[in-house]
């Protein structure tokens, strides 16, 4: 075998002429390698790459979602705070208005009461004056007639007459006082 190889070599084989078996083995080897790469190696690596990318991007998305949620909660609290403040203001304002209203109504009521009392007093005074006038008139009449009858000695017991005299006298008095008032 060695000798055969040597003989062939001695003929000065062209180094560019390939050996068919080597070609076949290389083609077959490359084909097997391609099959394994396409079937197993590449999908596995690509899947890992994709999963890793997704994991990283998913983490970022999750963080962003949490951030957004926190922001929303903060906004909500702020809003609630503003609402509460407005509510408190409103209540205070209402209370003030109510107080003012109550005060006003109380004042009004007091004024009305005082007016009523004054009115009542006026009426009573008027009534009492009237009564006083009536009783005074009666008394003055009686006194006057009695006085006159004593002076005159004539009984002025006749009621009708005496009443007339008294009335005339009083009317004179009224006229005098009216004239004085003018």
């Amino acid at each position, binding site marked *: 075998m060695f000798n055969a190889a040597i003989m062939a070599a001695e003929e000065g084989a062209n180094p560019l002429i390939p050996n068919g078996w080597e070609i076949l083995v290389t083609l077959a080897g*490359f084909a097997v390698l391609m099959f394994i790469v396409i079937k197993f*190696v590449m999908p596995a690596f690509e899947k890992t790459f994709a999963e890793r990318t997704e994991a990283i991007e998913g983490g970022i998305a999750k963080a962003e979602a949490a951030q957004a949620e926190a922001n929303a909660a903060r906004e909500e609290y702020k809003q609630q705070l503003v609402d509460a403040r407005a509510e408190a203001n409103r209540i205070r304002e209402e209370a003030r208005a109510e107080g003012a209203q109550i005060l006003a109504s109380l004042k009004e009521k007091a004024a009305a009461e005082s007016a009523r009392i004054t009115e009542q007093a006026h009426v009573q005074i008027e009534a009492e004056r009237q009564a006083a006038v009536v009783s005074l008139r009666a008394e003055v009449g009686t006194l006057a007639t009695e006085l006159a009858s004593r002076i005159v000695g004539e009984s002025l017991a006749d009621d009708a007459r005496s009443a007339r005299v008294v009335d005339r006298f009083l009317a004179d008095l009224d006229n005098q006082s009216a004239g004085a008032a003018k």
Partner: protein
Amino acid sequence: MIALALPAETTDEGFVAPTIEDTHYPDILPWGGEYGVWFEGGFGKQMLLVIFSVILIASFFMAASRRRQMVPGKLQFLGESAYGFVRNSIGKDIIGGRDYLKYVPWLFAAFFFVLVNNIFGAIPLLQIPTFSHPGSAYAIAAIFYILWIAIGVKKHGLRYFKLAVVPSGVPWYIMPLLIPIEIISNFLVRPVTHSLRLFATMLAGHLIITLAGSAIEYMALSGSILLQGTGVLVLGGAVAMYMLEALIMVLQAYVFTLLAAIYIEGALHADAH
């Protein structure tokens, strides 16, 4: 030549440099015929290494991609970085667009297939970059030749061939000159350079290491103190060349994949070029 295969007989004839034939090891499972002839020869070390590389790459990436953890462990991180390198800095940056992912498995498989097979040349005992045999280089370049033409035809229909060879914005009277050049450069020269670049760099690097190695052996066994002293210098040079070769192995895997991506991109956007 005979002397080379049997180095023990050569010492008294002076140094005979190893040749390309020496990069072809005896068959492990011979089934007749010899190297240098189509479909002859047996199952050799090179083919064994090709199969080994497929097992190595496949098992590594299967193990690295199996766990699919959010926070990757060391193995998964290594696998993801390797995959992400081809996916992003070759696939995404060169092909781009929305559907570059469709072509990533081709680039990914090609990069690590070429890389591991090249690196074999830098590992003691394995010690042969499998693409220093032209058959493998032709095969993998042919795969991409067919792939990018198929992508072009699928994307643009038969109009693709017109788009690929008729440059736009060129006066009509230059066309007779340009069209043949475009045909030759795109459809004839491109697959050849794509494969030969890989094959030639690997073969050359391997030959240099082989040459240095056999020279060191010859000098060390020569019995002359002067030659042995020179052998130390050669050893230093060989280590430097080994480092350079290791760099070129990685670089060529990158270049091969990068060019494949550029060809695919050119086929996809033939109307824009």
